[in-house]
């Protein structure tokens, strides 16, 4: 299964998809042999770099979240000359910090039947059979090393009274394998990686470039050899030369404008790399989380996640009547529609994330949503309080009720919570092989920035696991192998490729400052977000996607003509930063829609209304779509070329997920 061949795109897509000039072989480099020996075998086959030669190699790591900070620190420890770049004022701000729930590991400390194989199995099945078996198995193997590493660093995981590590169950799996640090697991794991990184910065092996944003990738003789950055404080454009570039720049959920991602999270680094030749894997795979605090007005800037555990005791409902104006507590029982309990009598309020999300959207689209703008459904604890008592409910969910009250001003013990789904993770990203290398030699991608391990749906507590697996263990093994095998010519920033890339960066930045139009950056971003949410969100249809594919280029054109960015390029200019990122969102959005349009099956977070079971569940089409879609850039306004990496399942049998 080591190679994947680009197949001729389906005939019905001829109008959207260009046929590649010649078949390009996408070699995923998955080692042969039994699944449990693949990673060992891969490591043994790797070439090594002599310790004395390591400092001669410069590695550029973009991003300082879990994957980036862990990779930069570890490669620094090994003796490489590392440069790490972050647009934040300090690496500790990366958005990994906001992850709440926990991190999975197949430690089986509970003796409850967990194993590496079970975590692997859960990951492949949870990803709705659209992940690589080899990658998912390696992730499960490395999960145990991650916990060891983090404990050694002093990550304060929850402990029991005997001093042993606590675990809990998460995301509907049947074992307790999730390690956690209160509701702040991401924060503590990131601080662990940040501290390791700062130690290396202090030791001089890593040079940190804070407030520095990557704006382009430089490819010379087919190899990634550097990046172009903008110093966000001074506006200075710089070239950085390296032997390897690692992108760990997170996901692109902010294409929807409103998401649970941090405000500055963006797709610019991976998008620029895509435009330079890195294929984009499964761009349409996005995860929409069902329990977020809904939008309260047009000014809303982001959405806040509430733990999914609330659905264990809360009952979800909307009024039966459209345009209901009474307050929730004034609506009698008979006029309430507990729609999940009605439609899914066996699972009720505990249906999987995608089903819960999609149903909420449907009832709101019918005009029965509650709260400002009608974008919300009730999550009601009245019955639970009656059954369990107020104290018990307070004990179980008190901190969540407090977060809710802080934001909405409502006391959820008295009135039902209002919730609504929100985008919060993108399973798609740069296509990478087993070594986490993209289709550009020397360009690697780790964490949410790559497409690799999660398939079409990510299980809870798996994002932290993947980020740290890539950062601490995989990249520090595969990057040196590339260095040892590759002959690299000496280049410096005076190379024509750098000069041209710098020029292009300026040519993109200056028109934004000079457009002097009438609309703000945010107004475009909001419009794009609404368009994507409506047509490429929880439910996607052929007609809707075609409409979006038509509208996005128009919006993009208007953006470049009519955007207003004040101030200068040679200073801290937050509007200019935003404008550059939105310009790239306006391009990635089109690719997401194109991918969603071509994948006429439903799988995981990708739900095509045309492909559902009679009960309204996602219906996969394994005969036609059991592959990774890797898209190749063909130029702005040109249809991208589709390459396919077929997926084969030798250990986990392809089956329709059932919630009955």
């Amino acid at each position: 299964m080591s190679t994947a061949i680009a197949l001729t795109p389906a005939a019905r897509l001829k109008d959207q998809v260009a046929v590649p000039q010649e078949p390009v072989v996408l070699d995923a480099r998955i080692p042969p042999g039994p699944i449990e020996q693949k990673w060992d075998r891969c490591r043994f086959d790797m070439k090594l770099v002599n310790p004395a030669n390591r400092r001669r190699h410069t590695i550029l790591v973009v991003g300082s979240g879990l994957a980036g900070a862990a990779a930069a620190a570890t490669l620094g420890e090994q003796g490489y000359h590392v440069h790490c770049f972050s647009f934040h004022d300090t690496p500790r701000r990366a958005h990994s910090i906001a992850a709440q729930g926990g991190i999975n590991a197949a430690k089986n400390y509970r003796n409850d039947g967990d194993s590496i194989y079970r975590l692997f199995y859960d990951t492949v099945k949870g990803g709705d059979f659209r992940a690589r078996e080899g990658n998912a198995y390696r992730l499960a193997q490395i999960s145990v090393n991650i916990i060891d590493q983090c404990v050694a660093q002093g990550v304060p995981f929850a402990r029991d009274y005997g001093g042993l590590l606590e675990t809990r169950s998460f995301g509907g799996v049947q074992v307790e394998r999730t390690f956690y640090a209160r509701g702040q697991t991401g924060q503590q794991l990131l601080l662990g990686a940040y501290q390791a990184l700062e130690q290396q910065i202090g030791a001089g092996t890593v040079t940190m470039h804070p407030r520095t944003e990557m704006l382009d990738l430089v490819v010379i003789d087919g190899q990634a050899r550097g990046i172009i950055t903008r110093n966000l404080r001074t506006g200075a454009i710089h070239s950085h030369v390296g032997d390897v570039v690692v992108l760990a720049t997170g996901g692109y959920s902010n294409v929807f404008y409103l998401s649970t991602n941090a405000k500055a999270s963006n797709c610019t680094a991976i998008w620029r790399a895509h435009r330079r030749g890195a294929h984009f894997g499964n761009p349409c795979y996005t995860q929409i989380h069902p329990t977020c605090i809904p939008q309260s007005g047009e000014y809303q800037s982001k959405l806040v996640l509430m733990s999914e555990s609330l659905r264990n005791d809360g009952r979800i409902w909307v009024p039966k009547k459209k345009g209901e104006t009474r307050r929730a507590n004034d609506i009698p029982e008979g006029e309430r529609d507990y729609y999940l309990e009605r439609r899914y009598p066996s699972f009720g309020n505990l249906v999987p994330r995608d089903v819960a999300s999609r149903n909420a959207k449907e009832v709101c689209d019918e005009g029965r949503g509650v709260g400002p703008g009608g974008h919300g459904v009730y999550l009601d604890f009245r019955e639970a309080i009656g059954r369990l008592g107020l104290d018990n409910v307070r004990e179980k969910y008190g901190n969540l009720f407090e977060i809710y009250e802080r934001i909405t001003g409502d006391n959820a013990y008295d009135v039902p919570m209002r919730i609504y789904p929100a985008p919060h993770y993108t399973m798609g990203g740069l296509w990478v092989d087993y070594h986490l290398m993209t289709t550009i030699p020397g360009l690697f991608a780790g964490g949410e920035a790559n497409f690799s391990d999660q398939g079409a749906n990510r299980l809870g507590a798996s994002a932290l696991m993947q980020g740290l697996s890539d950062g601490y263990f995989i990249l520090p093994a595969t990057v040196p192998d590339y260095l040892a095998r590759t002959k690299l010519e000496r280049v410096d920033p005076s190379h024509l490729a750098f000069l041209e890339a710098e020029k292009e960066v300026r040519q993109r930045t200056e028109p934004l400052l000079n457009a002097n139009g009438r609309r703000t950056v945010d107004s475009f971003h909001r419009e794009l977000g609404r368009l994507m949410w409506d047509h490429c969100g929880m439910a996607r249809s052929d007609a809707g996607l075609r409409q979006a594919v038509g509208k996005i280029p128009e919006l993009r054109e208007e953006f470049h003509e009519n955007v207003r960015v004040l101030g200068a390029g040679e200073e801290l200019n937050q509007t200019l930063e935003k404008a550059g990122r939105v310009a790239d969102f306006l391009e990635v959005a089109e690719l997401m829609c194109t991918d969603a349009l071509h994948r006429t099956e439903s799988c995981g977070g990708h739900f095509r209304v045309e492909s559902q079971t009679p009960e309204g569940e996602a219906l996969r089409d394994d005969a036609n779509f059991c592959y990774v879609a890797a898209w190749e850039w063909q130029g702005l306004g040109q249809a991208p070329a589709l390459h396919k990496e077929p997926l084969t399942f030798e250990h986990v049998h392809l089956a329709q997920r059932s919630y009955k």
Partner: protein
Amino acid sequence: MKLNLRIWRQKDTDTAGRFVTYQVDEVSPDMSFLEMLDVLNEDLIGRGEEPVAFEHDCREGICGSCGFVINGMPHGPRRHTTVCQLHMRFFKDGDCLTLEPWRAQAFPVVRDLVVDRSAFDRIIQAGGYITAPTGAAPEAGAILVPKEAADTAMDAATCIGCGACVAACPNAAAMLFTSAKITHLNSLPQGQPERDERTLNMTAAMALEDFGSCSNHAECEAACPKGIPLEFIAGLNRDLIRAAFHRHREPLAVVAAPRHPAHEDT
């Protein structure tokens, strides 16, 4: 509701700043404070005036990016609340609010309400870690951590590095920040081998920056959005004494972090 905002405007570190007054109409009580500033900025851009720069990212109170002083109080009037989580329902129609950046010599103003907090990173570089090269870690289950120690470490580790403690302190001291990291790592068994060196080096690095000294005002504790308690500073002082009197085979090397390392890109 309507608000009058007196906001500190400063073009860059080297240019003198001043207060400028703005009026914001149609403030909804459901807005967060930063969303209210978003509205102001959209309005300013519409009028051709440069928007107010302020730092922000997660808007969930965890990344530590945001923070400025509202009417003399870092992060505003609500306890245990960052400005991104502070909602406008706690203000009244017609309120006059003065917004200014953290005022501390160690945190130079970058622009408007944005300051440079890299001094915090340099304190961490001096010893705010446990040396654990990747791959060398022992089996996690082999390290027992008493629950009390784990809970204390976690209480301390919740620091978000926002800098409100420094802004609140009349001396602009960084003791609460530094003591939080020292308490986190020194409470754990894994942190013991480097305990004395860490304590000495981090406090030495702190002294090299432009922070003042602690004189127990406890303003830091009151301003901390994460409720880091003052007792951690007492613990830091105890550990300093411990390090000074603890017998060591050789004198501990106190590493001075390079002060304001040259920024390559400037």
